């Protein structure tokens, strides 16, 4: 007797939506057990993680502010992963975007409310993210170097570069040697959406980007190419789609999205350059992309769920003394379970007596 996976002729649409939900429930159950093992009531933890953040205006805003970069980055990554291109260096592209855009903000400091400063920062951030993503993309296309390893290695390089710039050339000369740049002018900050609140226009940028990604992926020839290359590289070659061109394009899109998210974070929430500008958004966005089934609307929902658990995790650390690492472990487990549950959408799972013959899918 053994486990047998028979590919479905077409993916089950119901299970496509249901399987991430099932995985989430399973992850919550395992998380509850872990919390109980740490000596905290699972019920109380559930309320702190998933209910309390939804009950106050400020925490709702925090969720939106956390979800925005995640949704933005993950929408870009969806293009890559759909095309079987593995950019896992979004964190580095985020930092590159924040650094380049922030540089514009620092350079224009004190020039008095120029209207083009903010757009220039956003453009610089997006371009820098895309350009930084071109390094692994070109190495893959021209030299067949694994983009997984190069994009990841470049994360460390970007972080160190930002660290150097903030402690060196871009440090605020009047800042008592603190490793930070000058605070940006008001013209270089994303406007707040409501008087006296924390929600800023970056959230709108993210929503727009998700909408754009939805349309491009579902309704354009380019989106079609991305999907075909992912599902069947052979068919794509017969159709005359250039894999190299597509690799460069999806890297540019995901890098640009991550870079834009980076400068949005810097010009929105932070307001200056610091040695660290990301609590790991680029990596968490990978979870979000898969949790959202690599479709932008799903990604938006997934980003909100992950943001909820992150804010809830911060609350749990304060109220219940539960470590933040629990949230990270939960998110990793959730991604694993989502990937595992995916088997039900793509295959009939059967327990059968053995029989020879086999097949591979990529």
């Amino acid at each position, binding site marked *: 007797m053994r*486990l*047998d*996976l*028979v*590919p479905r002729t077409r993916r089950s649409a119901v299970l496509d939506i249901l399987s991430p939900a099932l995985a989430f429930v399973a992850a919550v159950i395992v998380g509850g057990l872990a919390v109980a093992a740490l000596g905290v009531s699972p019920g109380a933890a559930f309320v702190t993680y998933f209910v309390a953040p939804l009950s106050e205006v400020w925490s709702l805003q925090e969720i939106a502010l956390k979800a925005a970069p995640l949704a933005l980055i993950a929408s870009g990554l969806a293009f890559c*992963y759909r095309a079987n291109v*593995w950019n*896992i260096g979004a964190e580095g592209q985020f930092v590159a975007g924040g650094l380049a855009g922030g540089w514009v903000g620092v350079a224009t400091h004190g020039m008095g409310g120029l209207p083009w400063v903010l757009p220039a920062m956003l453009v610089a951030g997006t371009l820098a993210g895309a350009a930084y993503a071109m390094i692994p993309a070109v*190495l893959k296309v021209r*030299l*067949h*170097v*694994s983009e*997984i*390893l*190069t994009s*990841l*290695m*470049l994360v*460390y*390089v970007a972080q*160190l*570069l930002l*660290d*150097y710039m903030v402690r*060196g050339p871009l440090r605020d000369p009047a800042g008592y040697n603190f490793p930070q740049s000058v605070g940006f002018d008001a013209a270089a900050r994303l406007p707040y959406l409501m008087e006296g609140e924390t929600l800023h226009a970056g959230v709108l940028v993210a929503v727009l980007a998700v909408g754009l990604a939805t349309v491009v992926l579902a309704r354009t020839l380019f989106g079609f190419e991305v999907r075909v290359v992912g599902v069947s590289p052979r068919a794509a070659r017969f159709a005359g789609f250039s894999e190299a061109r597509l690799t460069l394009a999806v890297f540019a899109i995901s890098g640009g999205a991550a870079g834009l998210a980076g400068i949005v974070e810097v010009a929105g929430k932070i307001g200056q350059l610091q040695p660290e500008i990301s609590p790991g958004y680029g*990596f968490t966005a*990978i*979870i979000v992309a*898969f949790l959202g089934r690599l479709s932008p609307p799903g990604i938006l929902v997934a980003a909100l769920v992950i943001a909820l658990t992150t804010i809830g995790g911060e609350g749990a650390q304060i109220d219940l003394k539960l*470590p*933040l*690492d*629990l*949230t*990270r*472990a*939960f*998110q*990793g*487990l959730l*991604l*694993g379970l989502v*990937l*595992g549950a*995916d*088997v039900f959408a*793509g*295959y009939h799972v059967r327990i059968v007596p053995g*029989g*020879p*013959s*086999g*097949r*591979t*899918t*990529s």
Partner: protein
Amino acid sequence: MTLDIVQMVLVTVLAAATPLILAGIGELVAERSGVLNLGVEGMMIFGAAVSFAVAMQTGSTVLGALGGAGAGLALAALFGILTVGLAANQVASGLSLTILGLGLSGLVGAGYVGIKRDPAPHLAIPGLTDLPGVGRLLFGQDAFVYTAVALVAAVSWFLWRTRAGLTLRAIGDDPVATHALGLKVRRVRFLAVLFGGACAGLGGAYLALAYTPFWSPGMTAGRGWIALALVVFASWRPLRVAVGALLFGGATVLQLHAQAAGLGVPGQLLSALPYLATILALVLLSLGRRQGGSLAPAALGRVFTPSR
């Protein structure tokens, strides 16, 4: 006298290379069977945290090392169930494993931050260890180093001199054909993944029990990823993994010395060197192999589902 200085440098290089050898050799076996496990970093750091916790609780370095290997093995089992059993995407599953491992290591290690332990004992054979020039290098290492060296030899022998090794490599090249021959593709792959996990966990244990020797969050600092790159760099050959790890260990030591000497180069640039060197190594390797084609196991990273 100079001989002793050379030996001292070589000893530190070997120490820096050991965790990379351990994790790299395990990943090599998994990849030879056709499974790409990107969770090395996660398994390594979880192994480091668990090994330190076990060693503190029991007072035994050996039990700590076994605990570390077991921790890596447990995470690898999860990965194996996902990718070998349920045909999940290997790249994404590996990433989830890294995130999970980082989180779990923080949970396990939380109570042990800032505590220092005596490093794992070094071999001391009267007469031999004191030999000038080579004594400490050859006869004065800790058990991790000897294990790493033995593993390289053992894996080399296993993959190219045994029938089981041939089976494993064949499965990594063509799971469909080997399955048709009646070989247990999924079982072999699962076992290879487990071996990779145990090795990565042991590599982590070395960091926490011998190299530093304490626990700090994120202490693997990308070594798991570098081990992954080493396997590519080594064209999936065990001896070359060891050579690559030594070169890399040498670069690390050099960078530390440069940082200490204060050459007027920004510290951040020196810290970035290992990562830049990895990229450069991969590029050079690719340039040197323009004609030859890929040496990777043919089915690496591809999911296999037996069906009628």
